[in-house]
């Protein structure tokens, strides 16, 4: 039975449970809902939850566990072949699954019957041809053991699916029956539903947490793999980034410091641009601008935030870079020969700063608006001017939020990729000169993984190590932001 149908059945049972539970509660109260402990629909929800939630939980669990069990028992069947041919077990297993899928399709489209599938023989029938006929192209001929494994894979799946349907529906029915029988006028359905709601919320929260955990773990494992192939000390303290592109490894220098330096340098310039402009814009908008100006200017600023970063990248490459060269380049406006090409730290930093302005301003604006009017009144009432009030009362009061906004902007700057690729160039370099091309961690992650490199080579795996370093840095930044905010709160609340 397909899973969708199974789910629909369980939901239908839930609806039936709702109606039945409500009816039984009303009946036990003699038709007067005032005699009930909870509102009638709570009894319905209670039965509906008891019917659907455990059944759904079981279904999810089953879907997770069944493939694991079947895989491990089927791979027992082909492990001999794997060791004979020296091929990896994973590859053979994926062949097995593919053949099994092909046979499924063949049966479904009526090319074969179940009996014919049973009777298939790898020696006599050309299974590769047969499956190609139903749209499954295989890389090689099907060996007898693979075919046998595929057959038993199908059989096991079939059995598993049947039992799955039986158990899930049985669970739903049991839940329905038990909770229906528990329903009477003194049953505290409202409180039980409360717990059901709690369970759903916890489920959602744990999915969020588990995915994060999964991502972090996969980063960690791949990073450990990388450090087995490449010494960690050279990665963290190496002063040069020079991967070999042969794909065969060896001779690569994978020091993170030039990339980290580029990241921080560009982010710094971006923040130097974005923080003052964004903050001043926010102060103007929230404190000085009249209603009409504000109602036009604020959405306009927020439009800036909606521009895709690749557009900013183009802007950096085609407009800002050449403009900077015109000013700082050899025959430039200032006559100083500081800048030779349009791609430079300065270009990317400036454009990234422009990108971050609406980010900083819109967050700060909300925060400044949240400072109570009574605070302003207090300061103005003492004879302070508007700007004195802003500087000495409003900004200090809004500071934790503003620091948070700035650090959030910093996280964005550090994680930004497209602007860097187009604006700052691709050369990893440790230099103080902001008019030179440099590159960042994120840009290098992209360039290490694009192209057809082998994903188990250190040149590709280094991406994970770079990723986790970046992750740790942003995490540290966020923790630092929290710390500052909390310290400030303790002081003034």
């Amino acid at each position: 039975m397909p899973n969708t149908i199974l789910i629909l059945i369980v939901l239908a049972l839930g609806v039936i449970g709702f109606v039945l539970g409500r009816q039984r509660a009303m009946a036990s109260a003699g038709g007067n809902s005032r005699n009930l402990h909870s509102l009638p629909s709570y009894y319905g929800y209670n039965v509906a939850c008891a019917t659907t939630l455990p059944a759904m939980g079981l279904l999810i669990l089953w879907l997770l566990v069944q493939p694991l069990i079947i895989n491990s028992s089927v791979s027992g069947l082909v492990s001999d072949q794997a060791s004979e041919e020296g091929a990896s077990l994973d590859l053979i297993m994926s062949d097995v699954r593919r053949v099994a899928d092909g046979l499924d399709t063949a049966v479904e489209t009526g090319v074969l019957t179940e009996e014919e599938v049973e009777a298939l023989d790898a020696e006599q029938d050309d299974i590769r041809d047969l499956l190609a006929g139903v749209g499954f192209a295989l890389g090689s001929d099907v060996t007898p053991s693979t075919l046998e494994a595929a057959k038993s894979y199908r059989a096991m799946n079939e059995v598993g699916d049947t039992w799955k349907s039986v158990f899930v529906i049985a669970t739903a029915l049991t839940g329905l029956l038990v909770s229906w029988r528990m329903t009477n006028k003194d049953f505290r359905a409202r409180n039980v539903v409360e717990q059901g709601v709690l369970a759903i919320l916890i489920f959602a929260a744990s999915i969020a947490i588990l995915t994060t955990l999964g991502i972090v773990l996969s980063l960690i494992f791949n990073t450990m793999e990388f450090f087995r192939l490449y010494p960690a000390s050279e990665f963290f303290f190496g002063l040069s980034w020079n991967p070999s592109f042969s794909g065969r490894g060896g001779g690569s220098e994978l020091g993170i410091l030039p990339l980290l330096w580029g990241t921080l340098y560009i982010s710094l310039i971006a923040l130097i641009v974005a923080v003052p402009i964004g903050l001043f814009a926010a102060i103007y908008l929230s404190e000085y601008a009249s209603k009409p100006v504000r109602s036009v200017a604020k959405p306009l600023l927020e439009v800036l935030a909606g521009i895709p970063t690749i557009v900013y990248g183009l802007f950096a490459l085609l407009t800002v870079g050449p403009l900077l060269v015109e000013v700082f380049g050899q025959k430039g406006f200032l006559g100083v020969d500081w800048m030779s090409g349009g791609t430079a730290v300065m270009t990317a930093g400036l454009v990234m700063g422009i990108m971050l302005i609406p980010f900083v301003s819109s967050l700060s604006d909300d925060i400044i608006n949240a400072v109570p009017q009574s605070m302003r009144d207090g300061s103005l009432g003492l004879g302070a001017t508007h700007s004195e009030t802003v500087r000495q009362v409003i900004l200090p009061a809004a500071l934790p939020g503003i620091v948070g906004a700035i650090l959030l902007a910093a996280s964005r700057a550090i994680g930004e990729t497209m602007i860097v690729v187009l604006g700052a160039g691709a050369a990893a370099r440790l230099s103080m000169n902001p008019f030179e091309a440099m590159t960042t961690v994120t840009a290098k992650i992209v360039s290490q993984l694009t192209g057809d490199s082998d994903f188990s080579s250190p040149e590709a795996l280094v991406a994970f190590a770079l990723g986790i370093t970046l992750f740790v840095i942003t995490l540290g930044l966020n923790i630092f932001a929290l710390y500052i905010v909390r310290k400030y709160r303790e002081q003034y609340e």
Partner: protein
Amino acid sequence: MEDLAYMDRQMSTEQDIKISAKNVQVYYADNHAIKDVNVDIADKTVTAFIGPSGCGKSTFLRCINRMNDTIDVCRVEGAIKIDGEDIYDKRVDPVQLRAKVGMVFQKPNPFPKSIYDNVAYGPRIHGLAKNRAELDDIVEKALRRGAIWDEVKDRLDAPGTGLSGGQQQRLCIARAVATEPQVLLMDEPCSALDPIATAQVEELIDELRQNYSVVIVTHSMQQAARVSQKTAFFHLGNLVEYDDTDKIFTNPEDERTESYISGRIG
């Protein structure tokens, strides 16, 4: 003889009028909150504003130091003069005005700064102290007058927002007197205070009267009777009666005043 005495009184009040309001109207958008109020507030006296909640006491008080400028929808008409100068004149700088006319707000609003910095805020802005020692003196004196010195003298660096509601109220009083205003507007300054602190604040008000004029909004009839020389009764945006406090509390002319004082409206 009687005429002479009357003349004399008339003269002296006319000379000592600090604030004079003529035909003041206040609108919040369409809401006509103050209707045609005329009042002369004398120098070196305490004037109490009483009246039921929502009758416009705070609104009128805020007109006197132009705090209503900060409310977009608020519109003030008529003339208010302080020392004979129209404060709504274009040439008057509201910032300067507010330094001269201090205000204690209905809700305590300490800044998110230390207790010391809260009190030193005004003096610093107006450059009242030449050095740190002088500033220390000003702060201590203000806190003493606000009847809160003993409670905070050991924690001047603690945040002002960490004080209790009543302490915050006294801190705001201290903050307002630290700038040495000529007129002090106090909007229910004792609403969160215990009897002892209230008595201390009333003592302060009495002391301030020696040099300044004080306008106090209060919901306590006893307090109005205790601290003020003049009382104004507001009702639904109108100034119903304005006279000597004794007269208002013993022999009011308007029956609305009498009903309010005896607890029938409000």
